[in-house]
């Protein structure tokens, strides 16, 4: 039978969760006085009334603050007291359910067979049915994973999670051989394969040779293996590229090889240990360890279900670390998001799109949940706002790992067993790999709801704990994660050279009734696949058992060179591995880059008081404080943090790169940073790329890193690459990446691309602005020499290094004036490198009291941040700032976002040494740190153009995202 237990707070106890939901409802414009949350547990099994009381008293209830009932009356519904109960859809598993079963068994109650959870919301306020529907859909639930329980007290007769297995099944064969082009296209579309006609024809030809039609799972396997997501067809294919209408076409054979990989090859750094081919790039750390770094996107899922999308994005990139070499240990997370501004009116959103405020809240919570629960500090990140991200937010999740030297390589041997470990397989995320290779539409939610999932970080933590034990005992020969494409991708990749034979019915399932092809391509989270020599299998299973992690032998890497799948003894697939991996036809795509027609900015004739402009820049969403987000992330777990995301005596200043120790107690550290700027890309993708590389490197230099040892990751998020203009700007961006990486001596070690970021609605295609995220990882020789950005001491000199130029294009200043401009900041690579070398030496000699990178908002914002972070005032003289260009005006000097500039704070006694380091380079003392609270900037005519208290500036900067 099923018991229904409701748990709620005792009267008089504050319900903070309910209060916070009430605030969200009020935020939507409804008048409610409060919300109370009731937790509902449905317990199925052979359980007596006495036992249910024990379960309530000892497990489900906190006797100090909560009460429960299992004798139920109808909840009181009236016009000013509404009750809504929300439960997960069948197939979506709440991790609480498994924990509850464990908790009940711990009580010695063994009759329990299944648990489902729900939440009941008691809303105190006058809401019409329509209002209630709006509140339900926009605050309380996401219909992709949840539903309203229509009749809560009507307890169901079965929870439906223990249905008997369907033992009979038919192998589905797809009639490909007899299909004409139209039919081929239809098969691709109906099966959500996202394969184009040429690819479908290639598959048809292959099976003609085999003399038979493919089964459904064979076709699915090809679609997954050949998907843009897994094969990066755009970056690895042929591109015919030209600039402008009359430009000479240039043939690019693999953009990846000619830009990203070419830079790495040319630089040929000895400390690059493993680049591009594994789940993450690996570089040397110290004599015993290497570090690996990977950043991935999870855009499409986050657009539909922000919490689940970001949640599984973090989980996925952590598994990349676990699947690098023979498994690395995760050290820290870095996350970057692009959203539409939170104040966008609902009417400006594309139909079907969630409001950016909700997207942001969900994404941030999803990252928080996974990172915190896995005990991995989220040390760094950025949030970028631009209205073009309305239908298509970007979510970048990154992870750094530590791996002992010698464990960075792996090899599957013939005869190794295929072992799946971790979470069970369910119907989650079917078609994720192919789905992310197409555009979103307003119908995407219904078509692709199976692609949305929520994660279980504790499961992954258990996998991590067990995995490192097994790794150190040498119990397996290779490992990879189950990401997009599930087993199909993991086994397919690992067995490329050996082939594999798999019994799909051996996979542990979340619930019965899965079809064989669903098991094969399911993207259920928290799973890894390992190759285990038969001699170690017992020891390996024992290790996983000791950590309560499921491990199952699925089959064998059998040396056949074929991929053979069986289900209950019957063969359902038999494919040639070589065709799967090498059969993809090379496609030529057209690309054209048009320099956009842009107008030079129009500035006021005379520069007046610039204080309001500084406040405007500080309160721009991109610049403003992200403290409210940073604080809900555990950024200090593992104890390794050296330069934390929040700096200064009030722990609220915006740090540049994050620095962590590689290991507790070690002197050496790792710096992690990000460079991203969407507006520069609208002017010129080449200089956007160069600026992002410069920014990421600059941030590492600012905290005390060295230009000798910085590695880069690229993440391209672009529109549909089948459209020549989108692809043209992508090519130009990749060229900027190559140029910058080579010039700075900073190789790319890994990367990812997410294309088709377009939102088609009513026939109109809305593309995101082409966006590149450059993530950098740097070596820090001695963390005790690290520098933070907060001003330290009155009387110290303020220095600007690097040249400020007439480069207002794409600046925050112009955006606040409603303009874009036309001149993006460029990079003088040679000079920039010399400047960074000099700053590096200054840090090594401990000359720097503080240092801060100049980026969005220019000198003005950087100086203001240093002042209010340190709780100290400043006097700044603009006529001292090194400048090059025509418009030498105060606003240009203050707000131009020219690259390769830093602000340094140096004690008077070190000025001479500093001067000798910067000989021949652009540098100047521009001011002094002051004891008082005033922040005063004198213009070219020596009269103040900014005069304001640091407290005011801080308040302005903190309020937008409070």
């Amino acid at each position, binding site marked *: 039978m099923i018991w229904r237990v409701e748990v709620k707070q005792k009267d008089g*106890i*504050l319900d*903070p*969760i309910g*209060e*916070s939901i009430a605030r969200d409802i009020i935020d939507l414009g409804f008048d409610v006085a409060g919300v109370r949350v009731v937790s509902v547990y449905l317990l199925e099994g052979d359980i007596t009334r006495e036992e249910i009381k024990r379960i309530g008293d*000892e*497990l*489900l209830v*906190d*006797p*100090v*603050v909560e009460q429960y009932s299992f004798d139920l009356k109808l909840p009181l519904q009236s016009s000013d007291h509404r009750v809504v109960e929300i439960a997960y859809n069948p197939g979506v598993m709440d*991790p*609480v359910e498994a*924990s*509850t079963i*464990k*908790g009940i068994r*711990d*009580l*010695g109650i063994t009759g329990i067979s299944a648990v489902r959870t729900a939440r009941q919301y008691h809303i105190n306020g006058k809401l019409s049915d329509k209002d209630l529907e709006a509140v339900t859909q926009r605050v309380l639930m996401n219909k992709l994973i949840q539903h309203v329980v229509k009749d809560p007290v009507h307890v169901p007769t079965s929870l439906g999670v223990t249905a008997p297995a369907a033992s009979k099944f038919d192998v589905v064969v797809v009639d490909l051989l007899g299909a004409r082009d139209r039919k081929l296209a239809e098969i691709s579309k109906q099966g959500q394969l996202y394969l184009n006609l040429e690819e479908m024809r290639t598959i048809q030809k292959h099976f003609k040779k085999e003399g038979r039609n493919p089964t459904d799972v064979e076709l699915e396997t090809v679609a997954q293996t050949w998907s843009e997501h897994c094969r990066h067809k755009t970056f690895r294919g042929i591109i015919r590229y030209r600039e402008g209408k009359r430009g000479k076409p240039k043939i690019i054979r693999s953009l990846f090889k000619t830009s990203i990989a070419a830079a790495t090859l040319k630089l040929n750094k000895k400390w690059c240990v493993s680049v591009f081919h594994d789940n993450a790039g690996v570089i040397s750390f110290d004599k015993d360890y290497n570090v690996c770094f990977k950043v991935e996107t999870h855009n499409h899922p986050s657009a539909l279900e922000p919490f689940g999308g970001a949640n599984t994005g973090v989980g996925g990139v952590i598994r990349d670390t676990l699947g690098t070499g023979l498994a690395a240990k995760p050290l820290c997370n870095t996350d970057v998001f692009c959203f539409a501004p939170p104040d966008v009116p609902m009417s400006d959103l594309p139909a079907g799109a969630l409001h950016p405020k909700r997207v942001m809240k969900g994404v941030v919570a999803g990252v*928080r949940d996974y990172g*915190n*629960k*896995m*005990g991995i500090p989220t040390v760094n990140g950025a949030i970028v706002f631009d209205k073009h991200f309305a239908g298509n937010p970007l979510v970048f999740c990154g992870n750094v790992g530590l791996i002992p030297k010698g464990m960075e390589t792996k090899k599957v041997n013939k005869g190794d067993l295929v072992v799946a470990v971790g979470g069970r397989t369910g119907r989650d995320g079917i078609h994720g790999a192919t789905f992310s290779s197409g555009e979103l539409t307003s119908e995407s939610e219904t078509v692709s709801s199976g692609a949305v999932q929520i994660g*279980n*970080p*504790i499961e992954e*933590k*258990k996998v991590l*704990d067990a995995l490192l034990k097994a790794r150190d005992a040498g119990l397996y020969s290779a490992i990879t994660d189950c990401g997009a494409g599930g087993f199909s991708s993991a086994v397919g990749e690992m067995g490329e050279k050996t082939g594999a034979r798999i019994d799909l019915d051996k996979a542990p399932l979340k619930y019965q009734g899965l079809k064989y092809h669903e098991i094969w391509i399911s993207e259920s989270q928290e799973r890894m696949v390992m190759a285990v020599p038969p001699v170690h299998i017992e020891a390996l299973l024992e290790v996983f058992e000791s*950590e*309560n992690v499921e491990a199952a032998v699925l089959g064998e890497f059998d040396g056949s060179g074929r991929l053979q799948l069986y289900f209950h003894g019957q063969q359902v697939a038999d494919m040639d591995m070589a065709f799967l991996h090498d059969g993809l036809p090379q496609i030529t795509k057209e690309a054209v880059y048009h320099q956009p027609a842009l107008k030079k900015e129009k500035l006021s004739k005379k520069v007046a008081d610039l204080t309001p402009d500084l406040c405007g820049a500080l309160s721009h969403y991109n610049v403003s404080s992200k403290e409210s987000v940073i*604080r*809900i992330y*555990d*950024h*200090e*777990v593992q*104890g390794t*943090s*050296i330069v*934390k995301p*929040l*700096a*200064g*005596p009030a*722990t609220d200043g915006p740090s540049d790169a994050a620095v962590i120790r590689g290991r*507790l*107690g070690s002197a050496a550290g790792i710096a992690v940073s990000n460079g991203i700027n969407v507006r520069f890309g609208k002017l010129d993708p080449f200089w956007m790329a160069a600026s992002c590389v410069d920014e990421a490197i600059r941030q590492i230099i600012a905290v005390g890193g060295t230009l000798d040892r910085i590695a880069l990751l690229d993440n391209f998020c672009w529109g549909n690459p089948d459209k020549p203009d989108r692809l043209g700007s992508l090519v130009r961006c990749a060229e900027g990446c190559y140029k910058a990486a080579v010039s700075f001596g900073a190789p790319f070690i890994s990367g990812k691309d997410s294309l088709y970021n377009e939102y088609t609605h009513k026939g109109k295609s809305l593309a995101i602005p082409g966006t590149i995220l450059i993530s950098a990882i740097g070596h820090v020789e001695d*963390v*005790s020499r*690290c*520098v*933070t950005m*907060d001003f*330290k001491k009155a009387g110290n000199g303020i220095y600007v290094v690097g040249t400020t130029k007439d480069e207002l294009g794409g600046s925050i200043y112009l955006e606040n004036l409603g303009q874009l401009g036309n001149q993006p900041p460029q990079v003088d690579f040679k000079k920039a490198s010399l400047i960074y070398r000099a700053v590096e030496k200054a840090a090594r000699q401990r000359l720097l009291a*503080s240092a801060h990178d100049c980026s969005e908002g220019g000198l003005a914002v950087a100086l203001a941040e240093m002042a209010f972070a340190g709780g100290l005032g400043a006097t700044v003289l603009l006529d001292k700032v090194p400048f090059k260009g025509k418009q030498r005006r105060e606003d240009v000097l203050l707000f131009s976002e020219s690259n390769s500039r830093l602000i340094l704070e140096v004690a008077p006694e070190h000025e001479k040494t500093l001067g000798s380091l910067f000989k021949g380079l652009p540098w100047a003392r521009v001011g002094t740190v002051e004891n008082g609270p005033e922040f005063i900037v004198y213009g070219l005519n020596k009269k103040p153009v900014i005069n304001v208290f640091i407290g005011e500036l801080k308040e302005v900067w903190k309020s937008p995202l409070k």
Partner: protein
Amino acid sequence: MINNVKVIIIRSAGTNCNEETAFAFRHLGASVDQVHIKALTAKEKRLDDYHILALPGGFSYGDDIASGRILANELRLKLAEDIQRFIAGGKLIIGICNGFQILTKAGILPGLGWSIGQEATLFYNDSAKFEDRWVHLKVESRCAWTKNLAPQIYLPVAHGEGKFIPRDKKVLEALSANGQIALRYCAPDGAKPSYPENPNGSVEDIAGICDTTGRVLGLMPHPERHFLFEQHPFWTRLPRKSEFGEGAKIFENGVNYVKENLLK
């Protein structure tokens, strides 16, 4: 004959501050075993072999149902006798963050012994949010772990369920009368805190309590995250007087207590 200080750190699914807690004890010369709860309940490992039991931070079993609940039940139902014997034997227990939640929900803290079951709880922060921030703490009790600490220390908290609530007034009075309130949140100048100085709304600003023996301590702040000087959030502004941070003394007290009282 055991001649060194032996620490057992209990792990379960979701424990995640075990490494840094182990680092702190090891750095002070103790030997540390990180043991899965399963090995204890299966009697593969015995609490009797150790002097100090540490329950580190994390999200044991995801904090599903409520923070610490499931691991607390495991201790209470499967290891009660071993733990009682451990405490009666004059040994030490520390529970940090999730560990504090577990000790409280298992009824080991505050351990007034009036009844079976919970005498207090740690509930959702008033802010309804997980928050990572540094807090000032007033050191108050005669607890073995907090002896000779500076009168005020600076440590980070990182939790979503840290609001200390005693079952009733009687419990609160007893805690106060027995000197069991080890740490209270305070303003930087030591004055009565408001949010976020008291980050969770804890009753009477209570951040940590000990049992009646003074040898069992539970606290929400993380002393292991301020074990080293460079873990201080603005160490770049401060003179480096020692390699240690302000939380180190707590671990040192534990290790020294064993040396002075149990190893002699």
